[in-house]
């Protein structure tokens, strides 16, 4: 210690420092052991967390791939006992319902997201809060809503399923859009203002293109979440064992097939459920990974 020469027992600060150093030295072994144990437990927990998650994916792959035959993709769902059933009608249904929901919620969600990003009043605050809370409302309630509000008047129909799914997607797109738009450098829009552009032109030519990576990410994540939902569809599209592409009629969808077949005692139906689960999971994961890749790609392009 270089300060040793100034050291005197009378100095309370130095005395206190020596005490602290003493305690630190005396406890360092115990503290290190304790730390190693605790950090080890964190690692163990991470492994425990990864196991079931990996198990779900591997199990679905192992059970689902054998179900993927040509018939699986080209035939409609058939009742137990009739061989060679597929999920073609459910694939068509999921795509149509997803497409309707996306086509309506993206423009609306973007407008509302722009509104949230450009306003700070109490009304914007209330809508932002409502959007946040709506992302966490159990999805079954959106199904009940679709049933009460529309099925009772119009009967079971695919477009009502799209409405219920859209209610789940809308707040996600709004909040993701707002986050992306708020992330745009304000200097860019100020430059637009300085050039005499109107606000609409600034939004269309400057802010939205700059926020595009975030907006696309949010939209794709919302679609991924929407097409995987089961509960809202049970109340609204009813299911249909025939191929149906008319959105005003009851339709089949992949989540419904999985849900209905998984409680059946027949091995062939359960195998189709696994095939459908693998298909749905792959679609959702591809949308997710794709959104990340695209966002990164657009970000790099811009630089």
């Amino acid at each position, binding site marked *: 210690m270089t300060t040793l020469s100034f050291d005197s027992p009378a100095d309370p600060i130095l005395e206190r420092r020596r005490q602290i150093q003493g305690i630190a030295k005396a406890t*360092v072994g115990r*503290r290190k052991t304790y730390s190693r144990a605790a950090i080890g437990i964190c690692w*163990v*927990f991470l492994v*425990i*967390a*990864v196991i079931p*998650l990996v198990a*779900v994916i591997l*199990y*679905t792959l192992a*059970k689902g791939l054998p179900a993927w035959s040509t018939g699986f993709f080209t035939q409609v769902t058939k009742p137990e006992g009739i061989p060679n059933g597929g999920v073609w009608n459910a694939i068509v249904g999921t795509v149509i319902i997803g497409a309707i929901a996306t086509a309506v919620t993206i423009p*609306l969600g973007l*407008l*509302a997201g722009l*509104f949230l990003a450009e306003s700070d009043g109490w*009304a*914007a605050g*209330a*809508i932002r*809060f409502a*959007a*946040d809370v*709506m*992302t*966490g*409302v*159990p*999805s*079954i*309630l*959106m199904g009940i*809503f679709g049933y*009460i509000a529309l099925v009772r008047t119009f009967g079971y129909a695919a477009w009502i399923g799209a409405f219920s799914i859209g209610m789940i997607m809308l707040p996600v797109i709004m*909040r*993701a859009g707002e986050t992306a738009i708020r992330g745009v450098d304000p200097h860019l829009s100020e430059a637009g203002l300085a050039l005499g552009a*109107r606000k*609409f*032109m600034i*939004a269309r*030519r*400057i802010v939205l293109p*700059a926020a595009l990576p975030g907006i696309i*990410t*949010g939209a794709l994540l919302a679609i*991924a*979440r929407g097409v*995987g939902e*089961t509960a809202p569809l*049970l109340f609204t599209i009813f299911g249909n064992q025939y191929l149906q592409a008319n959105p005003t009629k009851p339709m089949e969808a992949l*989540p419904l097939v*999985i*849900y209905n077949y*998984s409680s059946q005692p027949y091995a062939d139906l359960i195998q189709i459920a*696994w095939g459908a689960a693998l298909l*749905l*999971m792959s679609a*959702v*994961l591809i949308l997710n990974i794709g959104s*990340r890749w695209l966002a990164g790609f657009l970000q790099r392009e811009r630089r």
Partner: protein
Amino acid sequence: MTATSSEPLGREKRHSRFSLPNGGYRAILIVGGAIFAALVIWFLYSIVNQSRPAFSTLGFSWIIQKTWNPNLHKFGLLPFILGTVETTAIAMVLAVPIGLGSALALAYLVPQRAKVLLGTAVELLAAVPSVVYGLWGVIALAPLFREYVEPFSSSAFGWTGLFNGANSGVGLMLAGTILFVMVLPTMVAISRDVLAVVPKEQVEGAMALGATQWQVLRKVVLPEARAGLLGAFILATGRALGETVAVALVIGNSDYIAHSLKSPSATLASLIINNFGEASGTELAALFGAGLVLLVIGLTVNSIARALVRRAGGSGSVASVAVA
């Protein structure tokens, strides 16, 4: 934008013809916000309005009555409220230590490259559709529980009285476990975001003072991230409370109050989905009423969680908005 400046002047002009005056632009945005607000109000009104008959014919006490038997015109929700709380509790008892430990590991212990990979994997898993987890639970886990987990827990912990009854595989324990697997990615992803924004100076300061790695995490990082972690916990709880199809597939669906962790039970959401098809009249109103109870619980839980996570500054990225 660099892209627009390189376009020929003529094209610029053509574009600029579609423009709106500032007032018109503002009006369109307000319409967008107003449509969403109207949808939310329509949603709330529909649920409240349709469950009103249940309150007017059954009184308010039906929510906490014990018997659900449509033949006797009894629609007590207590078994389902308890089932919802019990499955969620099982899930969260497992998810809190494991989720928090994993989030700490992901935010501070894992090497940088693995961090991105594992973090993305966790976020992807939050996106796996719940019906896939349900299928996995009923086909893969239920036999495992019936043959191994339930007999083992009965023989090892039977003295607690929590594991009486037959080994059927499906029931509270399996439903809680499936919920745990489902909420874990949410829990880990948000906790990790919240933990990662703890100021570096504080962490480095503690390290400079000679704190061990665990002391830094325990005494500096965790207290600093407390509010956000609580928010992550509540958000995950909200997910578990409202989960429908996965739980309906593995809980066994019984209208009676569960007396053991192995008993079949039902949650508010699984009650609605299983009885909705055949219900009419007061029963249908009672199911909508169950939905209203679920909605009130969900709204309360979520508003608290949102406030906490936002104050902690955890949900900054677009991805984290969607994960939550």
